[in-house]
């Protein structure tokens, strides 16, 4: 084996159409993950206007919300994700 694969990050980002914060959230999460987790994450972007039914399931009350399902315990991050350190901490990406 070439290398032991790191656990894959499973992420879901809730956005609301084209609001600036939603757009920024998409941009930020892509930037952070592409830098720290290239090809090691799955990101699903859910637009609450297209699928309002999914809000209750993940208990989202604010948009944007990024949910990390794996690895480790479930973690929610609210806002446009522009505070990079906090996002990295939330996703468990701070250097050990």
């Amino acid at each position: 084996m070439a290398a032991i694969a790191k656990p894959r990050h499973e992420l879901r980002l809730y956005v609301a159409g084209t609001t600036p914060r939603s757009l920024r959230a998409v941009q930020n999460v892509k930037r952070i993950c592409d830098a720290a987790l290239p090809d090691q994450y799955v990101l699903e972007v859910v637009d609450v206007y297209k699928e309002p039914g999914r809000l209750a399931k993940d208990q989202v009350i604010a948009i944007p919300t990024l949910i990390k399902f794996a690895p480790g315990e479930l973690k929610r991050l609210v806002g446009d994700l522009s505070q990079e350190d906090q996002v990295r901490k939330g996703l468990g990406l701070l250097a050990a």
Partner: protein
Amino acid sequence: MKLSEAKAAPISDDLQTRLAASESRVAELESRLAEAEETLHAIRTGQVDALVVAGPDGDQIFALEGADHAYRILVEEMQEGTVTLDQSGLILYANRQFASMVRLPVESIVGSSISRFLPPDRRTTFSTLLAETDGTRQRSELTLMADDGLRVPVTISLNRLETGGINTVCAVITDLTEQRHYEAMVKDGELSRSILDQAIESIVVIDARGKILRVSESARKLAGRDVLLRHFDSVFEFWDRDQKVDAPRLLSAARSDNGIRSIEVILHHTDGADSTLLLSAGPLWSSSRDLLGCVVTLTDITERKETEEALGRQAHELERMNSDLKQFAYAVSHDLREPIRIVANYSQLLEKKYKDKLDEHADGYIRHTVNAAHRLERLLDDLLAYTQTAETQHTVEAPLDANVVLAKTLNMLDTALAESGARIESDALPMLWVEEIHLQQLFQNLIANSLKYRSDGLLRIRITAQAGKDMWTLGVSDNGIGIDPQYHEHIFGLFKRLHGGSKYSGSGMGLAICQKIVERYQGRIWVESEPGRGSNFLFTLPKET
């Protein structure tokens, strides 16, 4: 247990005071937590209309349902695709229509780069376009590549937008597939109309629901009225035996690739008349292999059909008559032979036994009877030969040396030739693809004719051969009495004799038999002659089988 009840040990005043403060602080927090939970609960359960959020310019009110909600629905439901891109081409937002254009669920589109959906050779151009887009609208036509490889022609219009501190480009994408399709149809329209109108056949083009889209001029005449945009089944009623050939049948046949090839159908006209037509139907595919409709081609064969039927009836009738005639001729020639032979034999016996024993008259009567009986015998032999000429139908396997056949024939006629003192000359004759018996009959009948119809001087008979393109022309010419041109055709008929029985004997069947033989080999026979200048009988026979 409440904190105030914990009085097990004496406590200092200071501690007492701090404890009280903490107690009231916890109570306050508890109450605020309860309030927050209630608020969250109220929001989560939909008990509020709007949220107030503090911003740099004071509080902002965010309506949960309102005017902009309607716009969002509009954006999601509209027929155009929309995407919001950042500077690098990253898709930050896409509506449902765009997702269906590129055939992917919308969740897996947001976060991808737009270049994923562009043909490789257009990616650089598009990046430049994106960078140059300012506040004014930019339009461009390009091809999107859907996730499954389908190519979708689109126009894309780009507009730069800067709100909330984020620099984006909004793109509205219009699918041109349908429009391209209609443009192509309009462009082809003129050409196809003139082709349709000049076609002799009737052509009807129907769409996938059976509506008539185009008709050729002759199809319009067939319908007897204007039929555009009417349903095929309300205009035409075609029957294939007892089955109706309607639009559903045509379309399902067209869909199954083979279509319909030239089936005979009957069209019932409103005036009660029927037409017979040949019907073909083929599919009309779109570039994406959807069945757009079908093309029905009709050829009116009513007249041809009627002529064919009349000819068929005539041929059948002729064949029946011919076969009756053959049977009759065979029966006559075959069945009459025996009684005639008896008449001939007994009259000869009478002649032998009673000649010079009766009176002069009786001798004359007996002689006439014997002659007549012999003539009748010969007539029947010839008639039998004639009826049998056409019956032998086996093919010739090897060519025959005509010189040999001529020599054999002359040998057979030896006595008659010697008596006539005729001088016979012959060209070198070719090899011929005929049966020996047939060639022999030809030579024998024609030479016998020359011997029979001779003039008073020395009889000269000449056999000639001349090569043509596909046929040899053979001739038997003499210096006999000749034939008046008015009888040149007449003489080949059955039982035709130009002269009475007394001077020239014969059954009148020789030339009829010759003609029948020659025609069997697709040749012909004719005569060149004038009275007093001899005759030249010519016939053709094939060079090869």
